[in-house]
Each structure stands twice: as C-alpha cells, then as structure tokens.
C-alpha cells in the first residue's frame, strides 16, 4: 500500500518513509520483505517516535516539507475506504462482533479524503490548503498532559525491563502507562501482542489478554469508542 503510494508520488518529489513500531524487529521483517519497499523503511523498536511526534496508534503519519519542517501533525493515516464501513451488521452475528462493527461505523470515513490531500500536497507543496504553518501544526497536534508524560516514562521503563528479561516488571510498568494514557493504543497493542493465548499460541490481532492484562482489544475499543480509536484528520 505505502510502496504503491510512494511510486505514484515520487515523481512529484514526495517520498514515503515507513517506521515500524515493533519491540521485536523480526516481527516486522516479513511484512517489509513482502512489500519490497524502494522508500526508506525503518524500524523503531524503542518506540521513540511515539513521543517525538505524538504517534498514538497505527497507522498514523506526519507530513514533513523539504526543509525538515512539519506541515501536518500526527494523525490517522487511513488512505483507502474502511472495509468496515460497508460491512452490513446482521442479526446472525455474535453480539460482540455487532457491537464492535457498530463502533467502527462511528469512525468518520477519512481514507479517500486523506489520500487526496496527500496527492494535493505532493502536487502543490506549500500552496496546498492542507499544508499547515508551523504555528498551526503545533496547535493542531494532540494535547499532552502530565499524565501523558508519565505514561511515556512508564512505557519506556517497561521496554527496559522487557529487554532485561524481566517480563513481570515490564507488564507492571506497561499497565501504569495504559492507565495513565488510555487513548494511546500503541502502548496497549504493543504490550498485549507479547502475550500468548491460554493454549500457548501467539497472541492474535484480537488481542484477548484477559488472563494477563485483565482486558481485551474489544473491551477497550468498546469502552473508548470507535471515534477515539485514532486521531481523525481535520481536512
């Protein structure tokens, strides 16, 4: 997907740079090898861009101009129509699935418009109405509270503990980060994905982690609401 966008826009002077937020770079490897990117494809196993740029879920993106200045802050980077928006909710579906799909439908459909905005910026540069001034970019970035700062510190101590091989300590730090900054899905999804299922299999995308974190992706998605799952681009 990103490789195709890169090929389309490279002649206009725009390059895609992807950053994989994976504690274990090898988890990202097969995706990268399958995409065979010709653009820079980087790995941020320490989650540094989370706090440097305000990334709080994936995919999210920032726009950087030719001088190294941000012209749009971190925002949800869907670039195609949501597959869930068109999905019909039927009575035959399990109740939980119906509830999750209902919440997905609460997310505004921004993919096509966001993609069109990227193309407009590639073509028109600073003249694009989607390119912000430095002051606008700072003002449009997400609020950062003292709790968010503490959450970042706790998440980082969790990574350090995990790298020491002390998984219980890592989980304790990550639980603190999750409680301090519930809207940060990066902290949650990264931590949960390290848990195995009760029968020993790798955690899947649904990330049902009741046994370890006492929660699950769908519990938290339903509690936070579809509209808060990512930062909605204001175009």
């Amino acid at each position, binding site marked *: 997907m990103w490789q195709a966008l890169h090929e389309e826009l490279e002649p206009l002077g*725009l390059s895609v*740079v992807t950053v994989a937020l994976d504690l274990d770079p090898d988890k990202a490897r097969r995706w990268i090898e399958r995409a065979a990117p010709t653009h820079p494809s980087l790995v941020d196993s320490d989650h540094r861009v989370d706090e440097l740029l305000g990334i709080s879920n994936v995919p999210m993106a920032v726009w950087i101009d030719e001088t190294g200045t941000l012209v749009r802050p971190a925002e949800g980077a869907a670039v195609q129509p949501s597959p869930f928006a068109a999905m019909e909710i039927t009575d035959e579906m399990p109740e939980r699935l119906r509830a999750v799909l209902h919440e997905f439908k609460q997310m505004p459909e921004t993919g096509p418009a966001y993609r069109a905005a990227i193309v407009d910026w590639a073509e028109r540069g600073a003249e694009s109405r989607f390119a912000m001034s430095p002051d606008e970019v700072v003002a449009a*970035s997400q609020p950062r509270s003292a709790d968010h700062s503490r959450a970042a510190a706790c998440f980082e101590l969790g990574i350090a503990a995990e790298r020491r091989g002390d998984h219980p300590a890592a989980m304790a730090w990550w639980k603190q980060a999750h409680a301090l900054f519930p809207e940060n899905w990066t902290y949650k999804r990264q931590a949960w994905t390290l848990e195995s299922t009760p029968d020993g299999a790798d955690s899947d995308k649904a990330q049902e982690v009741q046994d370890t974190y006492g929660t699950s992706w769908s519990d938290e998605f339903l509690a936070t609401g579809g509209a808060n799952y990512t930062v909605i681009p204001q175009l």
Partner: protein
Amino acid sequence: MLLDSLDLTAEAFAGAAGWVAKPEGMCKGDSCVPVPGTVGDDGGLDVAAVAERLGMALVADDDAGIWALGPESGGRALTTATVPPIELPDIDGNPFDLTAMHGRKVLLVAWASW
C-alpha cells in the same frame, strides 16, 4: 529517555532530550522556557528541577536503578514544527538519518506488525 544517573551535564541533556540550555532558558527549536539556576558553574544540570519546570515526568525504577524522563507536557504533543533529530535503522540494522530526505517532501508513516 532513560537515565542511569541524574548527574548530567547540560550538553548531555541537550543531546538526549533536545532541550538546550541557553542564557534565556531551556530551548527546543524556537521555543524557550526560563529555568533560572538549573545549570551549575560546572555545566551540571539540575535534572529534577528542569524536569519539573518543563513538565517532564521523572520516574524512577528503584529495582533497576534507572530513571525514565517523559516528554515535556502541559501543552501540545509538539512544541515546535521543526522535526527533531531522528536516526533509525532499517530492518538490516543500517542507520538512516531522516535529514537525508531534505529537499523532498516526506510522508512519514508509523505502522506495526501488531
């Protein structure tokens, strides 16, 4: 950022946190916050005082003997539109400095396997 000691020079702090001690205060990009008396004559920095003034959470892991310093807070996620120094490896470990992209527009996309 992780710290294994709170004895830090202003120079080391600037390298790690991006906040540079200047006569007008602690500065990052074009934004400066006055923090009087936090830099000693020996260039040492009162990390706890700077952290408090900038709203950076300083959290100790006593068992591991390390600290983590969260980002500045009390405002927005970005304090400046200037992209901070970002150097990250590719999947084979080759470092890539984002400033190599100067002269081109960049769509920087964060994704993950999870």
